């Protein structure tokens, strides 16, 4: 029997805690595959966030650090500046990166820290039980906006890739999705580029990945297409996919 595909070496063979239909497991695997393919596992340090991916430190098979909510880019800055021979990635959700950690992500981009950021946008606070996120859509229901988010009361969903594209130090910004098979493949290519940029010393790279949260969106767990439909019809019009910045070529 021929082994066609195996678990990446960069991912430990342990049971993950993620809910059925959640996108984190897919994204973890893609990051791990990229680490394997680039041969960087043994010099990579990952930064786990506060939020659903808090236990990422136990899933990736590389050195990991878990720190305060939203401060991943600051931790990554410290690691990378202290040990420039490492490859450093910060894995963050939308509450972590776009709300409490807004200053850290923007200033890491401004300094063009040579790090890779994996930003998982599922438009909700997952770990804490479905509160409104900075990326929650207008009209989307959450436990802190039970009738749906209104612009009058809570403002608008933040578009991080578009915003960071205005920052000179940001080298590579792409928004992808993992709700379709082609989306998963494109996400992997984007993650690979974001890591390759760091290997090449190009500077700050971030991939924003639209992802599913059936548990807290209230979509049916026995019908995953409800969640993928929300990504396609709800999130994508607000968060269009695509490359928002690719200054790598001229910045070398």
């Amino acid at each position, binding site marked *: 029997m021929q082994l066609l595909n195996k678990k990446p070496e960069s991912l430990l063979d342990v049971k993950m805690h993620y809910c059925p239909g959640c996108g984190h497991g897919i994204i973890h695997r893609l990051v791990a595959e990229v680490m394997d393919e680039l041969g960087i596992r043994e010099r990579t340090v990952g930064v786990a966030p506060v939020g659903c991916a808090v236990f990422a430190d136990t899933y990736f098979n590389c050195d990991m650090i878990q720190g305060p909510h939203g*401060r991943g880019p600051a931790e990554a800055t410290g690691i990378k500046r202290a040990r420039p021979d490492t490859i450093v990635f910060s894995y963050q959700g939308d509450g972590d990166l776009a709300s409490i950690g807004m200053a850290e992500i923007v200033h890491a981009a401004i300094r063009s820290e040579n790090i890779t950021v994996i930003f998982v946008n599922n438009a909700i606070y997952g770990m804490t039980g479905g509160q409104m996120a900075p990326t929650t859509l207008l009209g989307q229901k959450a436990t802190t906006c039970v009738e749906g988010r209104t612009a009058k009361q809570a403002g608008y969903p933040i578009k991080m890739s578009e915003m960071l594209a205005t920052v000179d130090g940001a080298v590579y910004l792409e928004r992808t999705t993992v709700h379709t098979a082609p989306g998963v493949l494109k996400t992997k290519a984007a993650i690979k580029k974001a890591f390759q940029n760091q290997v090449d010393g190009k500077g700050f790279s971030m991939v924003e990945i639209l992802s599913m949260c059936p548990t807290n969106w209230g979509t049916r767990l026995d019908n995953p297409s409800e969640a993928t439909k929300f990504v396609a019809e709800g999130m994508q019009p607000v968060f269009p996919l695509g490359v928002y910045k690719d200054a790598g070529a001229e910045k070398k």
Partner: protein
Amino acid sequence: MAEKKLMKGNEALAEGAIRAGCRFFAGYPITPQNEIPEYMSWRMPQVGGAFVQAESEVSAINMIYGAGATGVRCMTSSSSPGISLKQEGISYCAGADLPVFIGNVMRGGPGLGNIAGAQGDYWQATRGGGHGDYRTFVMAPNCVTELGNFPHKCFEVSFKYRIPSMVLTDGLLGQMMEPVDFKHPEIDPKSLPEPDWALGVARGRGKRIVKSYDLKEGGVEIMVNERVKRYQRIEASEVMYEEKMLEDAEVALVAYGISARVSVAAMKMAREKGLKVGLFRPITLWPFPKARLVELSARIKSFVVVEMSLGQMVEDVLLSLNGRAPVHLYAKPGASLITAEEVCAALEKIMKKGAKEYAAVK
């Protein structure tokens, strides 16, 4: 090695950290500690280290959390309001057992307060300041030479016991210029062994994790209890203090940092008036020199705590003595200077008129 240089206290602290092998600094401007990041910004590149002006104190301490996790000797500094902002990160450093070094140049508070030297952050520094059960090794210098030399001890203790350390000083000492005598040989960080917990290049070893959490039932209790054993070892071996003229003293002034300098002058004035006064100066504020105070209480009649706060260290003196001797307090909050004359007058009130104990005698 003796090499004297005229330096500002803040600069001496920065240079002392570099000589102790510090190779990463992150900080944010705040008066009266700005000379520290300014000095580090040009000095770090000279020694092959890295300097980052962070976007906030919050980011700066988290940069230190990251750099410290790689086993590199690293430092951040700030003044009172900025140290408040760093408390979450200091708690994480304590919870993840990271040997990071923090310079705290106190100013008047609470709130924005003022920018003059004060001692109102003793509780914050010695009680942890951030959330959770933890300790920080805290040293209080009383001159620019000590500012230049204490980073060496802080890094030594930090790495030996895996605990954050702090030099707690104030705007007066930070801004003061004095000749500095750097007593320790310069440490080349390349000569230091890589700690067996440090993150970085994993070739030939398994993955390592730096974290402060454990959600298993009883998990954090085990983590904290293991740490408590290290705290007990620190309390047993790392206490530092200084004594002046206590041999024949009836009353001991107890003061740290800038207040201890004022107290030396007050002690001399009181001696000229025939009062038998000495000085006990805690150098480590945590661990606090409890046992020595108890020993002294066998022959010292009473203790007078002098501090530029509403009276914070006095609680440690009271706890240490546990009723063995009367304790008086001469304190001024709000970064108001205490003068030797005032302290001497208080001593006269206590020793000649028998003023009531525990009261702030002003």
